[in-house]
Structures are given as C-alpha cells and as structure tokens.
C-alpha cells in the first residue's frame, strides 16, 4: 500500500531539485507539467487516494496537500527568480552612457533691459506707484517747455533731439510722461514710466541714439526732499543689494529745485575705488529733485499747496553694472550669445 504512493518526501525533494535546475521559463514549465500536470506525479498520487484504506485517507490526504503546496511554492519561487534574472538582463542591456550631453530645447528669455525696467517698476509699484507709459513721439513743447526748458536753453545741449517736423520730436527723456500724468490726474499721484528715449549722440561704447529711461514722481501735500531720499535709498537697496550705500550731491535740472544726483557705492569695487568708478568709489546713476514750481503751475497744480519729488535714470547703466556689461552697443546688436548670457 505504501508502495502505491511512493515516498512522498522523495518526490518533493526531486521536484525542488528539478525546479531549481530549470534555466528558462520553458524548462520550468516542463517541470510543472511533470509534477502538477494532468499526468503529473502529484496529480496521479491524488487519483490513487480513493484506493487507500478509509482510515488512512485523512492522513494521506493531508500529506498529499502538503506535497502539492511545497511543489507549487518551489515552482513559484523559481519562476520569480527567472523573471528577476530576465529583467535584470534586460536592464543591463539598456544601459546608457549617462555622460553623453543633454539634447537642448530652445529656452527663451526676455531682454535684459526689459527685465531691468520691469524689476525697477515692481519695486516702485510696491511703494504705491502706478506704472504708466507714454508716446515716443512728443511735441517740443511738452518735452522741453513744460519741463521749464525754454528754446535755446543751454540745458538742451545735453539733449540734442531728433526732429520730425511740425515741432514733433522723438522724446529725449521719459520725464515728459510725468507731464501727461500731471495733466490727467490730480494729487495725490505716484507714477512711474519707462521706455525708449532718443538723443542725437554719435554711437560709442556708452552712447546710443536710442536708449532707455525710467522716470517717476510723487505729488501730494507735504512731499519732502527727505521723502525723495528715503524712497530712492529703498530702491537702491532693493535693486543693487542691501549693503548699497548712497550719496546725494547737488546737481541741476531745469525742472527740479532743489536738484540732486544720487550715486551708489561702486558695485564693482565696493567703494574702494576702481576703473569703473574712476577711483571715486561712487557711481552716479540717477538724477532727482523736487519738481520746480513752474512745472506744477503749468499743469494747473498749486505749488504752494502741493510739492512733488521726481527722479529719472538711464536703464542701460544699472543693467551694465549689474551684469558687468562693458559696451552699450551689445544691447542693440542682438547677438544671441549675448542675449542668452544676461
């Protein structure tokens, strides 16, 4: 009777050996068929269970179930191992030279002067300035007379203009936008504008017939020169860094009184003196002052009741300082290698 079932332990060990020896999924399948298939050794043993003595059947059934479980488990773990090997072999074959260079996508960028103007605009917007714009073609009257610069005034020498006829010209400064805002709004107003300006300067490393300016002003009751200083120092620290020092010295603009020029501690040498700051440690970046009473009067604003501060600066110079650009012509040459760097 025992012979009929053979040595179950022997069968289990043999099945485990054969499963472990299978090197491919196909060979493993053959092992499965040999033991668990319809004619497999384990299956046949179950079929003979009915011939066993009734009192033997429960024990024998238990033993057979254990055998089937053990064989199945041996097959399954070998199948896992084979699958893992296959996956590893595949991944090994997929190895790439990870040091090959990347394949670039085009990365776009806004122009450094655009970003500079918008950055300046954002700083002042945070101080309650509205950011506005004006036309590039202006009338001589607005561009000069409204800013207290009469014809043939020596101050016009520095602002030689391109004329179009009929008194129209290409604006020489964005300060003229202040005039339009003053005309259109009543105090309190804080406004800032930026954009192209034009002067009839021959082209060199620091002059271009077209350049960019930012101009801003604030008009209200009780606006003081000290407010101008406070606001502009805030700007200088936001734009050039928190350690920036500033210096205000007297200057002259026909449309401001008092007039000042703001210099910042040299961003190249930190104020010790270098070629860029001409050994002075200071860089002049901005003209400013309190609006001349005539400018307010011409806009119909009573200068006894209201005072205003105003300031203006070129955009190229701060951008050149921040990005260490040494020639203004680079801004307008549009060499992609330049545009992508800054």
């Amino acid at each position, binding site marked *: 009777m025992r012979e009929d079932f053979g040595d179950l332990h022997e069968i289990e060990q043999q099945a485990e050996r054969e499963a472990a020896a299978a090197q491919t999924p196909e060979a493993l399948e053959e092992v499965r068929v040999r033991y668990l298939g319809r004619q497999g050794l384990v299956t046949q043993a179950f079929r003979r269970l009915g011939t066993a003595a009734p009192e033997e059947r429960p024990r024998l059934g238990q033993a057979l179930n254990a055998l089937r479980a053990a064989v199945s488990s041996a097959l399954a773990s070998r199948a896992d191992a084979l699958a893992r090997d296959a996956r590893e072999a595949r991944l090994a074959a997929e190895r790439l030279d990870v040091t090959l260079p990347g394949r670039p996508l085009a990365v776009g*960028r806004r122009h450094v*002067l655009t970003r500079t103007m918008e950055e300046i605009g954002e700083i002042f917007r945070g101080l309650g300035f509205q950011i506005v*714009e004006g036309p590039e073609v202006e009338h001589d009257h607005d561009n000069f007379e409204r800013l207290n610069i009469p014809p043939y005034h020596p101050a016009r020498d520095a602002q030689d203009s391109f004329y179009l006829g009929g008194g129209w010209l290409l604006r020489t400064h964005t300060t003229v936008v202040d005039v339009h805002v003053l005309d259109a709004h009543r105090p309190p107003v804080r406004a800032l504008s930026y954009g192209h300006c034009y002067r009839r300067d021959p082209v060199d490393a620091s002059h271009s017939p077209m350049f960019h300016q930012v101009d801003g002003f604030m008009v*209200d009751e009780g606006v003081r020169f*000290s407010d101008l200083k406070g606001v502009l120092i805030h700007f200088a620290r936001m734009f050039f860094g928190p350690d920036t020092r500033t210096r205000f010295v007297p200057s002259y603009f026909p449309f401001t009184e008092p007039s000042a020029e703001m210099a910042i501690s040299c961003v190249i040498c930190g104020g010790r003196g270098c070629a860029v700051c001409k050994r002075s440690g200071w860089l002049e970046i901005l003209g400013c002052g309190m609006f001349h009473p005539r400018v307010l009067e011409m806009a119909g604003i009573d200068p006894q009741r209201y*005072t205003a501060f105003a300031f203006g600066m070129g955009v190229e110079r701060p951008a050149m300082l921040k990005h260490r650009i040494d020639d203004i012509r680079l801004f307008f040459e549009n060499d992609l290698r330049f545009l992508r760097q800054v």
Partner: protein
Amino acid sequence: MRVPLEWLREFVDLADVPVDALVDRLPGVGLGVEAVERVGDDTVLELEVTPNRPDCLSILGVAREVALLLGRPLRAPGDAGARGLRRLTRGVEHSAAAGARLGAAQRVAVRIEDPGGCPRFVASVIEGIWIGASPSWMQRRLEAAGVRPINNVVDVTNYVMLELGQPMHAFDYERVSDHALTVRRARPGEALETLDGAVRALDETMLVVADEERAISLAGILGGRSTEITPDTTTVLLDAAHWDPPTIGRTARRLGIRTEASARFERGTDPEAPPQAQARAAELLTTLYGARVLRGMVDVYPRRIAPRVIRLRPERAASVLGIEIPRDEIVRILRALGCTAEGARALTVRVPTHRPDLTLEEDLIEEIARIYGYDRVPLTLPRGDTTPGITSPSLVADREVRETLARCGLVEALTLTLTRPETAAEAGGRPALLRNPLTRDHAALRTSLLPGLIEVLATNAARRIGNVQIFELGRIFQSRGPEDRPEERRSLGIAVMGRWRAGWNVPEEQVLADLFHVRWILDALLGSLGMEGQRVAPPATPQPWWHPGRAAEVSIGEHVVARFGELHPDYAQRHRLPHRAYLADVDLEALYRISAGRGRVAPGSPGAAPEAPAAAAPPIVPAGTYAGLPHFPDVERDLAAVVPADLPAARVEEIIRASAGPLLEAVELFDVYTGPPVPPGHRNLAYRLRLRAPDRTLVAGEVEEIVENVRNALRTRAGAQLRV
C-alpha cells in the same frame, strides 16, 4: 571748467588741504570732478559745471565755492592785496557821464541800439602796446586751463575771462572805422567774416557790434576778421559787455558756433563784472607791457540790473526739505553766499549779481540745502494717503506676451527704432522721416518690426549662429504728413530660423522651424490673451517679401491681427540666411483692444498715442477661469477623408465641427498624406474626434450617429471620399 590749483590758490588758502580731500568734498556742493590731471608741477581739476552756474566758469567763482566749503576767506589774486580784491569785487562806479569827462571817452564812442539785448557795454582804449608773446607763466596758466595762447593782448582778455568769468574782446583801434561802436541787430542779408575765417550769414535776430560801416564782431560770441589784433596793432579797443543770455544762445545755436565767450554769456554773466574786468585787464597790460590805458572807461549802461530781492520763509524751507534748519544757520549760509538777509519772520534776501540763477524762493532753499549738506537731510517715507500700486493694462499684457513667447523658446531682441528710409518704405506705408538724422541708416522711423528682425537673423548668421528664434515687442510708426504727429502703434515681430531643438542624433528635418512652428506660437500667444475663434487664410494682398505660397493672415472678427509666413527665398538669399526663415507680424494694438472688450479698431485707425491709464482701464490679459474637470469618459473616433488638395484644411475642420454638434470636445488632425492610393489632385486628411457629454456616459448609438453626421457632411460639403 579746467581749474589749475596754483591759480586757485591765489584766491583761497589751500596750503594744508590735500588734493584728494578737496576732490572728495567738491561734489558735496555740486561741483563734480570729472578728472584730476597733472600738468607740469601743478594739478588741474576738470570740474563739471551745471548750466545754472555760469559764475563757476571762472577761477574766482570756483574760489568762492571752495572758500565757502572750507569756511575760509576769499583773498586777493596775485600781489594786489586786499585793496585789489575790493576793487575787483566791488567794481568801479559806473556812469555814462563818467566817460564823458575822461580820456577814453574822447577817443571812442559807444551806442547801444538794443538795450534789451545788450544792457551794458564798457569800452576802454589802450595805447603804446607792442604785440608779442605773453610771459611764460601766463601761457602756462592759459594752456592748463585749456586756452591756446595767441598774443599778449588776446591772452590778457582770455586770462581775465578765465579768472573773473567776464569775456572780453580786443579790437585793433585803428581799424575800427570812425572809432565808434554801435551795438545793434544784424541787418537782413548782412555777412561777417569771423576770426576763424568763416563768412557768417546773419539775420535780424542776431546782435552785432558794428562800426560806422559794417558789423565787426558777432556780439558775445566771436570777433570779426577785419578788426583783428595783428602784429602791427599799436592801439587796442577793449570791450567787456553784458548780453541777454537767450539772444546769445539762439545765435550761437543757429550758427553752430560755441566759444568760451558764448558759453558764459548764454548762461548769464554778472552785470557788475564788465568794469571789473576792464580794470583787471588794464592792470595786467600796464604792469606787464607798460601799455598806457586811457583814463576812465566808456560805460554805457542804459538798463541798470538791480540785485534781485527774494522773500524766503524758513518754514517753507523746512516743509520742502524735511529738515528744520535753524534760522541762524540759514542766515549764515545766505550771507556766506554773498546775499543779504533781513527780516523778522520771513527773510528778505538780496542776491548778488553774480548769481543770476537765484530767482525764486525754491532756488534759495536749494542753496541752503546745498551748503548745509544734502547728506544731513534725513531719510523719511512719504506720509499721507496711500495710492494703489497698479500697472497699466497694456504693460501687464506686454509682460504676458513676452513671457508666453519666452516659454515658446524665443529670445527677446531689441533693435533700433531708427532705420533706413528705403527699408521703412519697403516694409509698408509712408515712413516718418527725421529732419536731422545723424546718418542715413537712422533717418526714418520703422514701419514694421520685421526688417529689424531679419537683420538680426543675418547678423547672427554672419557670426555662424544659424539657429535663431527671436521676437521683439515695440512701436512702429506711420507718417500722417510732414508736419503731423506720426501714428504710433504697438507691434510684435517674430522670426525663427533653423533648429528649435539641438543635440546629437536629432534628425534635422524634424526640428527645423517651419510655417507650422510659427503658427503654433501664434496660437499660444492668442490663447494667452484669451482669444478664440481666429481664422487663418491666405493673405488678401500678397506682399513681395513673403513666399507666394506660404503666407497667411490671422483675423478675429473683422480685423486682421497678424500675418505670418515664410520669408521669400530671394530675400533670405539676399541676407545670406543659412535656413528658411519664418516670420510673424502681430498688430498688438488691435489685439489689446479686442481683448479689452472694446473691439473698436476701425481699419487704418489713428492708433492714438498710448495714454496714461486710468485705474479703471479694463484688463487685457484674462484671469483664466477654471471650467471643471470632466466627470464622464470620452469616446475617440478616427476618420480619414480624401479631399481635393486645394480645399483648405481649415474648411474641412469647420465642416467637422459644425456637423458634429456640441458633444465634440476636440478634433485633432494627425496625418496629411498625398500619393498612391490617393488619386492625383487629392489628399488624405486623418482626424481624431473626441466626443464627450458633460452629464453622462455616451452610448454607442449616439456616437455612431454623430460620426455618421460628420461623414455625410464631409461627403456632401467637402466632396470627400471616406475611407473606413
């Protein structure tokens, strides 16, 4: 203004002041130092003098500022001592009658016909002079100050001008006809040969000094050739005058002349200076050359210029500056500046005549702050009502446009608005021309951004950069007539050429920019501005710079808002472009208006100058509204239609959309094929339709019905044959 320090030291004691310390402190009072130069064994300061400070165009004027800065007295020049200084600074008594009694008056007559243009004219006569070279010390000083020595007489006039700020002119007395000078307006058609040899055509707005026969000097600007000092000159007629600044400024600019004299007169000289200058010149000519100066001078002063009186309220100064400067301090500063200041509450301030720039209370407030020190003004933040920090909608839209394009891989370029007139004309319309261009290359305003961008492609290509994707946002201009304000429009240009993706083993034909690359960029741009329903069609009027078969117009409603296409190969070749170039020209002005919901752009509308925005201006960039995610699955169906090759794809898509109805969520073209088995003259367009209902899962029956509708529509309306 070039200031030799050894000259300056004659007026103010600088013995214990190092040059560096002086250079550091001068900007604090408004005298910027442009350069510090060693000349021989002296140091010369190159000062930047602002146009409002003519007084500082002299050693004396600079010395006054330095003395004030150092808190030291101003002293007499040379050996003249305190007495000499008093004479110099206080001047001599002037009186027309004085001339009549004394020597010079018998030898020269002076008449002023235009007292507005010439309020004061002082003449003197010097005899017994031998024309020769000046002593070397004087030549050195002149050269250090930037003036070329000429001869002893001319050098003395220049020396006095540099020292005191009062320009003078020397005539050869014998060559002045009748020894009579008249100050008058030039006559129409009158000409004058000036010292530089040029013959100047004058007009009635210009002032001249004339003898009985003709103009002999361009007043306040440049002397005339006919009365020039020559080696034979023995008697000299010296003039020192006060001129109306705008008259001199206008004449100098009209004639394009700029001299040391005109620079001072157009800014405004001291009306009290002419006799002082005459006295100083006389002193130098007699002591250096033994010349005989005829006693007295002819001083014609028809319109006395009185010192200006200004009312100054100390409290106004405090409220403008933001700092309370003690009243005593204010008075001290004003007196140090040469003013008198009196009064109990408001101060009555009398301004010295050498400061013509001080005319208003604000001018005095500036002077007080300047001397008190700008650095002593505190830092404050503005008080009062806050104002909202808002950005004008157009500028917000500009930023959105730029960022969208940058995200599409384009780099922003910035080209000059100024261009060649032919280029501007070729690009369209009537260009606005400059009256006074610097070069022909910059003589017109651009009418389109595209020529500039093509130039950028060419510049980069010439530098072996063949893959270029750029855009520019800026204004373009159209003339409305030679005397009228040009139309100014916001525009956008796009130019792409070559690969938009680089790297190894990336097949070039798959990554070269093409027409549909530009089309996608435009779609992205319009989408970012909330536009939909744009139509694309071949241009109504083809233009020569576009490839004749590869150009299109994009319109929204009635308005063409953009054009795009391939640059004509002839143009590409002319610019030596290494690849085909694709361009787009976008009318941002129109787009912004449509987007702002106004949509009132009439064709050829003036595109009025951008105005300062009111706070209430409507936004241009939509906020973007969340429409929810779908709750029910979609169904996709592919459809291939063989249609006549000349039927625009846009038309096929239109038919699909119209016939599919509202459940069509998207239609995507995924294949365009010509060649067998598609019959000649036809092409196969393959579309994927995505259908979805917002409120339920679609059932097979309704999907088939929609697809059948589309197929029928394509058959009947597009003449399509449908493949299964």
